[in-house]
């Protein structure tokens, strides 16, 4: 119950935040934090509960974006319907990929997702007739709800964060249920879980599919927000950023994923602003050095992420 009141406070705070923000630019950042949080929560479920690493989650994000984008822009389906198709379709793809791979021991999934991520990215780039190739896909329609069209940052902000909280609630419910217990048992001792009748491979595949669904949802929202998508943001770099968000927030803690998303997205923005001033090259990929170091430092010194750090500080004060 303590947790719920904490989140209720956050929700109220977020509801009033737009009043405080000086410009739309900041609202845009908050939207991106929300989208990243959605994708990161999915990855967090996978890493914290199935104990697997995915290095290709950007691909699921991109698949959600492109599927929904193509269905609505090129085939005229309503945006909600497009998303309602895109999310399960992406999850289904993840399921199909996961079944053979998650039967294997070890970290084969990490590698397979890496390869899959690259292949999907290449498809986005090369299948020009469907995706528009490097020049991207435009004229993606906005989401609508009755008379409401989500065409202003403010409206999208509320929509995205409502989704984030729904996803958080759903994720929490899963974690605290019979299924969540089964997942935690798999993470603790796969052998004992099997002995207790849990089909561990099947569960791992399902979590993988669920995590892909989260990412696809974020991708769909992204597409209908920007109304234009191109392959560039859906590559390896974004997959790593998602990984960093989960690690920094705390693997296995859903709220940590939101925290991690906020930290990393903000850090990205600041660094993107700062680095070109410090170094004369303008490639804008420098923040990646920090993320690399962050990964190492967190995994060695603070494997529970910021959530663990905050817990620690709270206990010390008590």
């Amino acid at each position, binding site marked *: 119950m303590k947790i719920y009141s904490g989140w209720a406070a956050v929700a109220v705070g977020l509801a009033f935040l737009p009043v405080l923000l000086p410009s739309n630019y900041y609202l845009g950042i908050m939207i991106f934090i929300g989208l990243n949080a959605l994708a990161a929560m999915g990855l967090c479920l996978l890493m914290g509960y199935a104990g697997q690493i995915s290095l290709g989650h950007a691909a699921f994000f991109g698949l959600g974006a492109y599927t929904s984008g193509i269905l609505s822009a090129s085939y005229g389906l309503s945006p909600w319907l497009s998303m309602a198709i895109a999310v399960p379709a992406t999850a289904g793809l993840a399921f199909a990929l996961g079944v053979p791979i998650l039967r294997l021991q070890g970290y084969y999934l990490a590698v397979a997702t890496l390869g899959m991520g690259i292949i999907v990215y290449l498809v986005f780039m090369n299948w020009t007739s469907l995706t528009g190739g490097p020049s991207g896909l435009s004229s993606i329609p906005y989401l609508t709800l009755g008379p409401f069209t989500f065409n202003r940052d403010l409206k999208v902000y509320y929509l995205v964060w409502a989704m984030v909280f729904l996803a958080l609630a759903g994720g929490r419910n899963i974690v605290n249920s*019979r299924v969540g217990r089964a997942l935690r*048992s798999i993470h603790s001792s796969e052998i004992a879980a099997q*002995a207790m*009748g*849990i089909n561990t491979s099947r569960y791992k595949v399902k979590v993988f599919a669920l995590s892909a669904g989260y990412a696809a949802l974020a991708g769909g929202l992204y597409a209908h927000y920007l109304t234009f998508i191109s392959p560039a943001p859906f590559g390896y770099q974004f997959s790593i950023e998602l990984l960093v968000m989960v690690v920094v927030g705390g693997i296995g803690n859903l709220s940590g994923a939101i925290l991690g998303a906020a930290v990393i997205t903000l850090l990205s923005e600041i660094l993107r602003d700062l680095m070109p001033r410090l170094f004369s090259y303008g490639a804008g990929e420098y923040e990646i050095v920090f993320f690399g170091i962050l990964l190492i430092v967190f995994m060695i010194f603070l494997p529970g992420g910021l959530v663990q750090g905050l817990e620690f500080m709270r206990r010390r004060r008590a």
Partner: protein
Amino acid sequence: MSLLQVEGITKHFGGLTALSGISFSVDEGKVFGLIGPNGAGKTTLLNIISGFIPATSGDILLKGKSIMGCHPHVLASRGISRTFQNGHLFGNMTALENVMVGCHIRFRGEFLSAALQTRWSHRQEREIYRQSLEILSSMGLHSWAQEPADSLPFGLQRLIEIARGVATKPELLLLDEPAAGLNPGEKELLTEEIARLRNLGITIILVEHDMGVVMSVCDYLVVLNYGQKIAEGTPEAVQIDPEVVTAYLGDENGFHA
């Protein structure tokens, strides 16, 4: 009357023969002891029966139906449960939650109902909670229900692992050296518990080194040595079997209660 029938089980690990032509039958409602010196193949046999390792040849019948090649989780739903020699408790959960995982296969409700928190899934969860607490209480463990499993003393951890196995409501419970590392008081508790479970109708296969426990609770014994069955019978008969005595003479534990 025969719950489990083991027929000619042989297991090769590369060039090493761990088990050779093991056959015996386990009667319903009895505590069946599987004993033998170190390295005799007892845990290997247990791993085969519970589906974790495939046998090289032979067959095992549960209530007349073959269970060869079944995955461990399938066997759990067919009524076989087990504990592990190295104690595989779920350290990231409380004692009660461990037992609740044991209840998993007897209930339903997957991701969707969990995410939506339907009234039905709430009811299931309450029932799982109640049953798990009951099992812990029946074993005298309810005061530790909310403790993290890995913070408890070893002897209690063993009992909780058994409670977890019992939660699957098995017909056959495999216990892999549950007495290892326990002090005499804990061993007595363990023995009582095994006898109580037997009286509830659960068939038990006990792999154990501690002869005191074996002698006081087993109804029937099979003795393995170097992967072969060298004797079987009641504890009293096996105890004086010359081959068994010889086999154990090399073992530092000896064959003494």
